[in-house]
């Protein structure tokens, strides 16, 4: 567990003045991840997206550590290149200190266009942490559906219309895909619980190999809610078990948050404009399916955690 006293000594490496929206979850993710790294030098790579364009508008930067961006689909390959350069230069005695490597990508850059690059980098075993700040759609280009967009959500490319009611497919389970890579550390977490996230980043950075964190990151614009509700909303995702917080260390599952009372998914959905249409009478079936999916997934995850091993 991280403690505030130690964290207060960590340097702020993502500074204010960036151009992310008020209430944006991505800024919180970046700042807390860097605080988690403490005084350890870190080099960051990022996919093209909100985080990158809002924090590095030339000639300004919000990053006090080295930050590199080249394209959308290659944050993982990029990070693997930096990490390999480090390995080479360190082996040759040209770099003496320890440096850690973090790659950021949104869900579009991670679940979809960057999946190959991510899979390749994880399989190759680079010592790097990949953080997917998952806001469940292509928000930077204006809320288009991604592989992470949940069933029923309205997006501009799977919109609600006279015939269709938002996305008609389930989101893919990227966290499980990463578990299947047999990497040392995989975790799922959410914005709104600094201790859960920071502890996971610290664990991830301490393993000698690749690690992956999938963090649910509300997007005020794309999810259409009040900007002050970012933390609250993400917590509801965990309390409804729509987005469980868990980790998989060397294949062993552990649930990090078990809600005292499992709330109905509607508690989470009703606060967001992207799900507004689901509350029409004729869409009651979609709500039922969402609840059923969540119940099944939660049941399965609990069994995995109980078994203490990969099922």
């Amino acid at each position, binding site marked *: 567990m991280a403690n505030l006293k130690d964290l207060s000594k960590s340097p702020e490496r993502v500074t204010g003045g960036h151009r992310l929206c008020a209430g944006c979850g991505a800024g919180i993710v970046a700042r807390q991840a860097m605080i988690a790294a403490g005084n350890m030098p870190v080099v960051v790579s990022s996919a093209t997206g909100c985080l990158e364009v809002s924090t590095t508008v030339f000639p300004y930067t919000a990053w006090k550590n080295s930050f*590199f961006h080249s*394209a959308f689909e290659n944050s993982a*390959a990029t990070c693997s*290149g930096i990490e390999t350069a480090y390995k080479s230069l360190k082996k040759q005695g040209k770099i003496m200190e320890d440096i850690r490597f973090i790659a950021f990508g949104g869900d579009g850059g991670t679940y979809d266009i960057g999946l190959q*690059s991510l899979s390749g980098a994880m399989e190759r075993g680079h010592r790097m942490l990949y953080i997917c700040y998952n806001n469940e759609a292509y928000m930077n280009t204006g809320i288009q559906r991604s592989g992470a967009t949940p069933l029923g959500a309205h997006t501009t490319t799977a919109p609600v219309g006279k015939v269709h009611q938002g996305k008609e497919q389930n989101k893919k389970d990227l966290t499980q895909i990463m578990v299947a890579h047999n990497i040392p550390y995989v975790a799922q977490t959410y914005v709104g619980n600094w201790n859960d996230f920071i502890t996971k980043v610290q664990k991830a950075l301490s393993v000698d190999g690749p690690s992956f964190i999938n963090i649910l990151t509300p997007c005020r614009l794309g999810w259409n809610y009040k900007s002050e509700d970012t933390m609250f909303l993400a917590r509801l995702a965990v309390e409804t078990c729509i987005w469980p917080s868990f980790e998989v260390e060397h294949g062993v599952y552990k649930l990090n948050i078990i809600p005292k009372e499992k709330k109905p998914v509607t508690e989470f959905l009703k606060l967001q404009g992207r799900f507004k249409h689901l509350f029409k009478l004729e869409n009651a079936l979609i709500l039922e399916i969402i609840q059923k999916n969540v119940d099944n997934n939660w049941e399965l995850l609990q069994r995995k955690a109980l078994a203490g091993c990969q099922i």
Partner: protein
Amino acid sequence: MIKTVFSKGKIVAKTGNEVMAEAMRQIEPDVVAAYPITPATEIVQIFSQFVADGIVKSEYIAVESEHSAMSATIAASAAGARAMTGTSSQGLCLMWEMLYIASGLRLPIVMAEVNRAISAPLNIHGDQSDTMGARDSGWIQIYSENSQEAYDNMIQAIRIAEKAKLPTLVTTDGFIISHCMEVVELYPDADVKAFVGIYKPERYLLDTKRPYTLGSVDLQDYYFEHRYQLAQAMRDSKDIILNVAKDFEKMFGRKYEMYEKFMFDDAEIAIVVIGSTAGTIKVVVEELREKGIKAGLLKIRVFRPFPTKQIVKDLSHVKAIAVLDRADSCSGAFAPIYADIVSSLYAAGITIPKVVNYVYGLGGREINTKHIVDVYEILAKIASGVQKPTSQVEYINVRK
């Protein structure tokens, strides 16, 4: 083959791919990231064996695609490493997005590129469609006539790229050079290492004392200046390339320029070409000269930057010129080399030579001395006024 005035290396028989790998061993970059593709596979295959045997200190990343190969090479270079890669054809196509980023970020990456046709239809043999398509990507492009040139060009490319702060690719023609065994002089390791020197980047990501942001979003207020600087760097790199060639000549005895003139200064008819076909043309030129025909050849070595000012001076006295392109631009106009030659002549106000364009050898289609003789015969007719030059692309050895 460009003759050496002295020989200090050992004379061996090697293929184009083998000598490119050999150059990489001697350069010993910090990082190589690559993905296999015919006919370039051998280069990185041989190199990864050097890594496996501990012969080089380099780290090798066996990436999952060419897009990631170029991404990882770019990242390694930005991190402060001397970084190299190699590819061909579809691989270069998959790198396309990243090629522009490598040059836009001014990273001195060197790539061994084996020219191969582009799909569809699928074809693994040699033509220059791949790198010609990348001619506007901001990479310095150096072409090789044979294995010796490929080896020499690779060694020079490191110095050129790092001085110009521009990525540089060195090509060979697929199979014709890449897989053809030739006599090559390899230089001693110590000499090559001394020539390429130690890489010292001004700024790099792993410099924790001076961290920095690279790859920012660059809007209306700065983007244009950065792109202008890139274009200017390409123009300025001509002097760098010539200076590196001079140093190379001093050290290794082989002379290189932006292009090579063969029996050219008094030529009345001439062919302009790139790559291995120059060797075939030289044989024909010698035969024609014996018959008293003033034929010549101009072989372009450096296509990017295009030596626009110098080349028009040399071409200005020739009566009829045929530009042979081993790539078709499918533009409805003309093929790449022809377009650059003619616009350079026109811009310089030179209107004496009649210039015609031939596309040849796509997908490895044979080009032999008979085909070349035919071209010179037509040039002779154009030069004497018997035949009018065509104003469209002509094709050699194709069934229409």
